[in-house]
């Protein structure tokens, strides 16, 4: 028997038992409309999810979700386990890829009006998949169990606490107790590896069933609105006249794009590697610099930039409003024009959303509103101009009394307050003394804990900044 014959026999044996030719092939070869490259975003998100499952299973083989071991086990995975660094790197960059892809997929579906009749449920299941993806991103960060992750969850708990009426109870549920500790870690672990993935499998199943049952949306044409009365008939006519088999005529694009995404993730994992851990999570070490991973950094930045007066309403109200808008959208706007050319508002919303998130992530990265947490050496251009002993003492005071935390001189120092380059030209001696003593404009007053000698030295130093 030739190899081909053996192969054919095996196929025939399987086909009789699995119904490949009658049940499976018709599904994967079902006719779909011809589309552009943006339609690959959904399948690429799924591929990223599969990456996360595979690497997640591998990581779970070594990860120990207990406060005294979690950190060490990740260090072991990163530095000692065979290919551990690569696996963790893929999991890290795969998570970023999945967040980016699911957001782009949602934006594309919104822009092309694909969420309109009869695909409202695709959008609604997709909304929950988007939320669960963010939930995975959030619960995943704590599992690193370093200082930043630990305090990021404390910050999250404080935000949850702002929920009206049930805030404190919700916090107890999220952190599984009265402090962020051992029970929090196991709860986040179980949520990250069992609960959310199980819900996501279920929803992905429904989402894909809907994609097959309703078919993917055709390319939008300006001037051809969706009318629920006629849409299905028109769509089926389109498939009969212009449809192409999904496999392989349409699917090759998905394959190429997913391979590209996978390649980028693996290359990043191999050459950039997973993020280095900070110090072990320890609530008694207060020298922390809590930051969420980039997926939530924009929210973190937003909380620094909005007026404090609306903060309480904003912290709970803003995410709730966004979710409600997502859920209501396909119910109130399920017919009419699909083409982005006829929907300038839709285009505007997506542009503003992506631009804002991009700018806010950048702002969150540099955090100009935040005082510096370490003392930086003054630049040579400043130190070489120090003439008198009091100016030298003043320079030390400037660094140690946290002036430098908010003010920069010669490009070194915080960005929270105005730069003090040339302050000796701008302000008189009395004005400088007044600012130091009284503060104001978001600057602390130093009156009461600065000695006359210190005030004199510091003012000498500042006056020398011409």
């Amino acid at each position, binding site marked *: 028997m030739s190899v081909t014959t053996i192969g054919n026999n095996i196929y025939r044996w399987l086909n009789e038992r699995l119904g490949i030719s009658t049940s499976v092939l018709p599904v994967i070869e079902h006719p779909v409309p011809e589309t552009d490259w943006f339609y690959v975003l959904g399948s690429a998100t799924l591929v990223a999810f599969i990456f996360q499952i595979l690497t997640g299973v591998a990581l779970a083989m070594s990860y120990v979700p*207990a406060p005294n071991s979690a950190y060490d086990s990740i260090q072991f995975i990163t530095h000692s386990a065979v290919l551990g660094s690569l696996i963790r790197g893929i999991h890290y960059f795969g998570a970023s890829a999945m967040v980016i892809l699911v957001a782009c997929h949602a934006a594309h579906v919104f822009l092309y009006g694909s969420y309109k009749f009869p695909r409202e449920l695709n959008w609604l299941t997709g909304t929950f998949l988007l939320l669960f993806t963010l939930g995975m991103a959030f619960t995943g960060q704590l599992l690193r169990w370093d200082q930043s992750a630990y305090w990021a969850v*404390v910050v999250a708990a404080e935000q949850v606490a702002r929920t009206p009426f049930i805030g404190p109870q919700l916090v107890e549920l999220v952190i599984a107790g009265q402090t962020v500790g051992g029970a929090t870690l196991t709860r986040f672990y179980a949520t990250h590896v069992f609960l959310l993935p199980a819900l996501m499998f279920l929803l992905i199943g429904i989402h894909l069933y809907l994609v097959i049952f309703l078919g993917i949306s055709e390319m939008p044409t300006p001037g051809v609105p969706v009318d629920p009365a006629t849409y299905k008939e028109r769509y089926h006519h389109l498939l009969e006249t212009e449809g192409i088999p999904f496999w392989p005529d349409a699917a090759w694009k998905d394959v190429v794009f997913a391979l590209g995404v996978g390649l980028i993730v693996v290359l990043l994992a191999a050459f950039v590697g997973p993020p280095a851990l900070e110090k072990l999570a320890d*609530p008694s070490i207060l020298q*922390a*610099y*809590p930051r969420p991973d980039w997926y939530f950094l924009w929210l973190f930045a937003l909380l620094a930039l909005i007026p404090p007066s609306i903060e309480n309403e904003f912290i709970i109200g803003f995410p709730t409003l966004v979710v409600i808008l997502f859920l209501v959208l396909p119910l109130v706007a399920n017919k009419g024009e699909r083409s982005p050319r006829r929907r300038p508002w839709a285009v505007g919303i997506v542009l503003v959303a992506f631009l804002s998130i991009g700018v806010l992530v950048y702002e969150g990265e540099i955090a100009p509103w935040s005082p510096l947490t370490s003392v930086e050496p003054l630049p040579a251009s400043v130190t070489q101009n120090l003439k008198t002993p009091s100016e030298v003492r003043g320079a030390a005071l400037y660094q140690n009394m946290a002036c430098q935390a908010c003010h920069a001189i010669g490009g070194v120092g915080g960005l929270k307050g105005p730069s003090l380059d040339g302050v000796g030209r701008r302000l008189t001696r009395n004005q400088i003394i007044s600012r130091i003593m009284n*503060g104001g404009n978001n600057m*602390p007053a*130093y009156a009461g804990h600065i000695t006359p000698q210190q005030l004199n030295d510091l003012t000498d130093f500042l006056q020398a900044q011409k």
Partner: protein
Amino acid sequence: MAERTTSPEAMSRRTFLSRISIALTALAGAVVTVPMVAYLLSPLIKPTLNVWVPLGTVDAFQIGETVESVYHDPSPVPWAGLTALTAVWVRRVSQEEFIVFAVNCTHLGCPVRWVQDAQLFICPCHGGVYYADGAVAAGPPPLPLFRYDYRIVNGVLEIRTRPLPVG
């Protein structure tokens, strides 16, 4: 399949079987789900613990100084490890008077650090700054730093614990 259309008895029998099957399945589902959900909600059932814990002898704190102190949390799980600790800032104002601050910024809970030379608490997250007495000096915090109740028993400084969110 003929019964479906011809016999009304068979119809009612089928309806009955279908309903009883759904009801039994729902019951079985509830038997499994209710305990699981209750287990997930269990943190709510446990009472909040506010107990007095010692921070150290009064003499260990210098008048006019602000220092970090840690206490053992009253409610950790046995495997809590380092996280059984909670930190506080202790300022001894006078012989008998103390202020024990929560380390959490009143804005969003990041740990504030004490800058001795500047006599300020500075938050690393959104730019909150507090004076030595906990009053807001700058930034977004809506309230002064939270304080713990304290008492002095036989020369030992004790505070009453409070759960997260401190406030």
